[in-house]
């Protein structure tokens, strides 16, 4: 189109140039004419004759001029036409310029888009790379997950085994719990039985207390009356009785007296285990002094000496310990050597339980060791346990009066104090009693 336009334009340009050339030629001719006219006019003026000839020639020339004007008008029209055509062509050229600019613009736009596409392309390429990287990473992660999955399956398998093991152990424990439940019931039953027995023992103990009261009062009373009646008979009917009768009444009196002693001692023995035990820090030397005062008559009579040195305070049931001291000291006085004045030595000291090596004593505790030593008749060593038993006597009542309860009471009192007592002796070499009670 443009090329076509160019060809037309070129032709137009050529035509135009020709026209222009022709116009210039004609203008040259017009100028030569005007010179000629001026020559003629000058020749008219100069040659007058020639005027008519020249007029004619002039007319010819006007005619020719007209012709030439006609042609010039035609040329003007043609020129206008050319101008018009030129304008048209300029319009078209403008339009072409605009179209060209438009194309250039479109071209630019396309180039921009191309540039953008290049950028977008690069971006996509980058994203692609990233995705490939991620895909690679995911691949690795996947492998890892697969591995972990395997591990978890392994663990799950292990857990299943462990679970089974636990379930088994659980069952075992339930079995044991059931067994323990049964054992527990058994223990509860035994416990109840023990409580019943304990309750029975309490009742039995109360019955024993009731028996103690019967002994104390109801048995003592008729006995005392027998004694009183006998003594009244012996006093008031003395002249009326034969010697044998008097003798028999006296024996009766002695027997009743022994029975009274027996009842008294039995009461003391049972009272030791039934009365309430209240421990208090007590000065043993005071108790010894009280006992000495109580036994004053016998001590004077036998010219006895009692030494009590290094006596430490002890935690004791005072009235019981007084009884203990009374029994031991009066025993020492009773079983004294006929030819020798009784000499009784009482000492006390604190000793560690660990040094005593006795299963009944705690190694951690401190013990008060009280010794009562005499120079009396003593006893054979093999009797050292037996002397502490109830009703056990080593001598006939004709030689040494007594019921055989005194040392049993002593032992019971020591046991009430959570202690132990032992006796050591040889015949005619005195006796020693060792008491250990918690300090």
């Amino acid at each position, binding site marked *: 189109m443009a090329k076509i336009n160019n060809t037309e334009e070129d032709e137009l340009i050529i035509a135009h140039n020709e026209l222009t050339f022709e116009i210039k030629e004609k203008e040259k001719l017009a100028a030569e004419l005007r010179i000629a006219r001026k020559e003629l006019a000058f020749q008219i003026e100069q040659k007058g004759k020639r005027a008519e000839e020249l007029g004619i020639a002039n007319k010819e020339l006007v005619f020719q001029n007209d012709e030439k004007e006609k042609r010039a008008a035609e040329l003007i029209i043609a020129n206008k036409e050319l101008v018009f055509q030129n304008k048209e062509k300029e319009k078209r050229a403008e339009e072409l310029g605009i179209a060209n600019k438009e194309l250039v613009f479109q071209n630019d736009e396309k180039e921009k888009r191309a540039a953008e596409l290049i950028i977008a392309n690069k971006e996509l390429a980058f994203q692609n790379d990233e995705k490939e990287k991620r895909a690679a990473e995911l691949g690795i992660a996947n492998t890892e997950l697969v591995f972990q999955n395997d591990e978890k399956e392994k663990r799950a398998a292990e857990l299943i085994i462990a679970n089974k093991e636990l379930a088994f152990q659980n069952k075992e424990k339930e079995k044991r719990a059931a067994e323990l439940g049964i054992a527990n019931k058994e223990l509860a039953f035994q416990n109840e039985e023990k409580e019943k027995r304990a309750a029975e023992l309490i009742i039995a103990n109360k019955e024993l207390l009731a028996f103690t009261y019967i002994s104390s009062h109801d048995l003592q009373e008729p006995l*005392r*009356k027998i*004694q*009183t009646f006998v003594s*009244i008979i012996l*006093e008031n009917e003395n002249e009326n009785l034969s010697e044998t009768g008097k003798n028999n009444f006296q024996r009766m009196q002695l027997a*009743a007296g022994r029975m009274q002693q027996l009842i008294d001692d039995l009461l003391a023995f049972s009272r030791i285990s039934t009365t309430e035990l209240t421990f208090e820090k007590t000065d043993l030397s005071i108790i010894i002094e009280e006992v000495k005062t109580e036994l004053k008559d016998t001590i004077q009579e036998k010219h006895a000496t009692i030494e009590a040195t290094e006596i430490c305070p002890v935690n004791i049931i005072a*009235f019981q310990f007084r009884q203990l001291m009374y029994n031991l000291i009066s025993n020492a006085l009773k079983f004294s050597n006929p030819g020798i004045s009784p000499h009784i030595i009482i000492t006390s000291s604190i000793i560690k339980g660990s040094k005593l090596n006795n299963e009944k004593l705690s190694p951690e505790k401190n013990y008060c060791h009280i010794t009562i030593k005499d120079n009396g008749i003593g006893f054979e060593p093999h009797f050292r346990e037996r002397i502490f038993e109830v009703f056990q006597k080593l001598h006939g009542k004709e030689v040494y009066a007594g019921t055989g309860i005194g040392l049993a009471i002593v032992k019971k009192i020591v046991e009430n104090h959570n202690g132990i007592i032992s006796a050591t002796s040889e015949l005619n070499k005195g006796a020693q009693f060792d008491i250990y009670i918690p300090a």
Partner: protein
Amino acid sequence: MSIRQLNILLADDDKDDRLFFKMALDALTISTQLTTVADGEKLMAYLSENAQQLPDVLLLDLNMPRKNGFECLSEIKLSNTLKQLPVIIFSTSFEQEVVNLLYQNGALYFMRKPAEFSQLKKIIQQTVTLISQDLPASPSLKLQQSRAGQAGNISQPTRENFVLTVQNSRVI
């Protein structure tokens, strides 16, 4: 020393013991008048009937039917009209705790019934002498003192001297 007759009241359910007591009392040189009641209820009835002419001393057995010696002692010591009556416990049994309780409850003396008749005579003589020493000259004076709210009765000894024992050495 009072020259007037000593009025003794004995509360004991045991017929033999009442007999022993009367025999022992009759053997004494001191002139006495003995009244006996056989149980605690009878004792309290007697005391309320004779509130204006109370005995000089009451010898009280512990173990008696219907109302025992402990109950009688408490009632006597809680009564305004009877609390000044000297009460001597006269019992077969001898237990420290019982003796302590009786001392706290205001008994004057505790006496254990002896087995030997000679001992019984001695201890009764000791007791009668003790009471006579502190006796007012006449019952009327005793009554006046009692009304005045003064200590006309014999005051309780220390705990150590509360239990009466036969004292051989003592010359009566």
